[in-house]
């Protein structure tokens, strides 16, 4: 065979001299953008730090075991957050199973069973839209539907249902994403062994997507726990001396208690509010750390 013919020298489109010249300029832009992003990050962190510092400075002195165990009182030195704390915990315990069953169920249906089509994508778009609806609107819905129409009154269950409804869109969307992330090959492996669709979903898809699903649920619940507006709409009690005794009890929740204290003129109550915020924040940070831990610990690598 003849040697390959020498190729005519091709014109080069990338000119090394021009590259050299532009490099220093590009690096300057690089550094400037880096500084801008750093400022962005610092701004957020500093503001957050100042807020935290303020809250801890005002509230730390009021934190005590008594504060956690007492009912609110007109006398600041005797006031506590026990009913509100228990109200929030009960709300959480009620919301989690509701959004787990409804949210994951809806996500499984949409991802695994529903025929992909215009109807399904219409529903999906609207679920995403619902995630952006202001929480007070869900409060209004809860007031008309659960409190009035269903006749629950301003009870724990009405509040829990309202918050669950509010969290559902976020849970559905995040569960859908977790389910979608399970490789198709897993489903095929299971189906090819003669497993039914439900067995495949329950034994393969769901376990594989569970870390993502649980993370989504925890984040949604921690958001719900910090909500005030919908609970005020459904008529959570502003002043209540006892923890709820059942799902049809009157109730209050931490954010409402905090809101209540901040609206008082006396400085002592401001301190109590700050202490309440610390308690709420500890709960939220714990939940979020739990979510991160679950994600890191159980996330599957395919």
């Amino acid at each position, binding site marked *: 065979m003849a040697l390959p013919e020498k190729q005519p020298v091709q014109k080069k489109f990338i000119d090394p001299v021009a590259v050299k010249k532009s490099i220093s300029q590009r690096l300057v832009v690089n550094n400037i953008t880096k500084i801008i992003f750093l400022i962005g990050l610092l701004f957020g962190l500093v503001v957050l730090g100042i807020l935290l510092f303020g809250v801890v400075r005002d509230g730390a002195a009021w934190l005590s075991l008594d504060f956690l165990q007492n009912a609110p009182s007109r006398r600041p030195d005797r006031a506590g957050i026990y009913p509100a704390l228990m109200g929030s915990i009960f709300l959480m315990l009620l919301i989690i199973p509701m959004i787990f069953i409804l949210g994951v169920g809806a996500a499984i249906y949409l991802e695994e069973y529903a*025929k*992909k089509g215009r109807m399904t994508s219409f529903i999906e778009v609207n679920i995403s839209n619902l995630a952006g609806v202001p929480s007070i609107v869900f409060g209004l819905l809860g007031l008309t539907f659960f409190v009035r129409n269903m006749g629950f009154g301003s009870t724990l269950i009405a509040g829990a249902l309202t918050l669950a409804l509010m969290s559902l869109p976020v849970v559905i969307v995040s569960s859908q994403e977790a389910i979608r992330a399970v*490789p198709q*090959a*897993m489903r*095929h*492996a*299971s*189906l*090819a*062994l*003669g*497993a*039914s669709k439900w*067995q495949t979903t329950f*034994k*393969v898809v769901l*376990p*594989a997507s569970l870390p993502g699903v649980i993370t989504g649920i925890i984040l949604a619940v921690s958001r719900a726990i910090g909500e005030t507006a919908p609970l005020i709409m459904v008529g959570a009690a502003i002043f209540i001396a006892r923890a709820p005794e059942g799902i049809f009890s009157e109730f209050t929740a931490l954010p409402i208690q905090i809101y209540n204290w901040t609206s008082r003129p006396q400085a002592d109550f401001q301190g109590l509010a700050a202490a309440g915020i610390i308690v709420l924040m500890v709960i939220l940070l714990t939940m979020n750390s739990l979510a991160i831990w679950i994600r890191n610990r159980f996330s*599957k*690598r*395919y």
Partner: protein
Amino acid sequence: MDTKLTTKPAKEGAKTMNQPVAARQSVYRVNDLNLWYGDDHALKDVNLDIKQNEVTAIIGPSGCGKSTFIKTLNRMVELVPIVRTNGVIEYHGRNIFDKDYEVEELRTSVGMVFQQPNPFPKSIYDNIAYGPRVHGVKNKKILDEIVERSLRGAAIWEEVKDRLNENAYGLSGGQQQRLCIARCLAIEPDVILMDEPTSALDPISTLKVEELVQELKKDYSIIIVTHNMQQAARVSDKTAFFLNGEVVEFDQTDRIFSNPSDKRTEDYISGRFG
């Protein structure tokens, strides 16, 4: 379906194995099978007769419909929503497209090994036990036995017997593929479909899988898609050559490779196209 695993009689293969080739029973009889993906006519008038305890190789250039064909044999192809089929595929005399033929039942007797190893993100033990559990086996002793037998059957027992509770993702690609074969054996199928089972493997793992195929054909009927001519020649008894969705030639493997009757087959196996 649940009692099947424990009560299934010994494989008919044991009887038919020593019979002359011509007398072997048909596992699949494919009659005028046509398949469309939307408007794309992917399988055209396919007619094939697949015998028990034989290895049937499917060869042909990329995109000619090999995967589509073997996925039709266990109706996995129906997972693609736009698929339409017509024609008849008789599996042991019964049309698999019959309305009352449950795919779950079909797929329990027809196992499948995929091109990419696809173990579940579970332990090695749970991977193998998955199929039997799905079909209702709960007894731990029986499961243990199935797991060991299947792993031995797939020639991977020695490598994994001390780490059954470890995640299957810790195995090498070749081991994962043999694990998937073992998982498929665990449902005690009658036919094993393999879609390019060695294309993601190194030569040594490939050799192991090929030896395994030889071993398995004593008890199972095997249909294997391959891009590798030597592999087809080494492992199969019959070979079908597909081109553009049609079966150009289907014959004894040695005939196909030594003296093909169609010019296109000859061109393909001598590497002139595809």
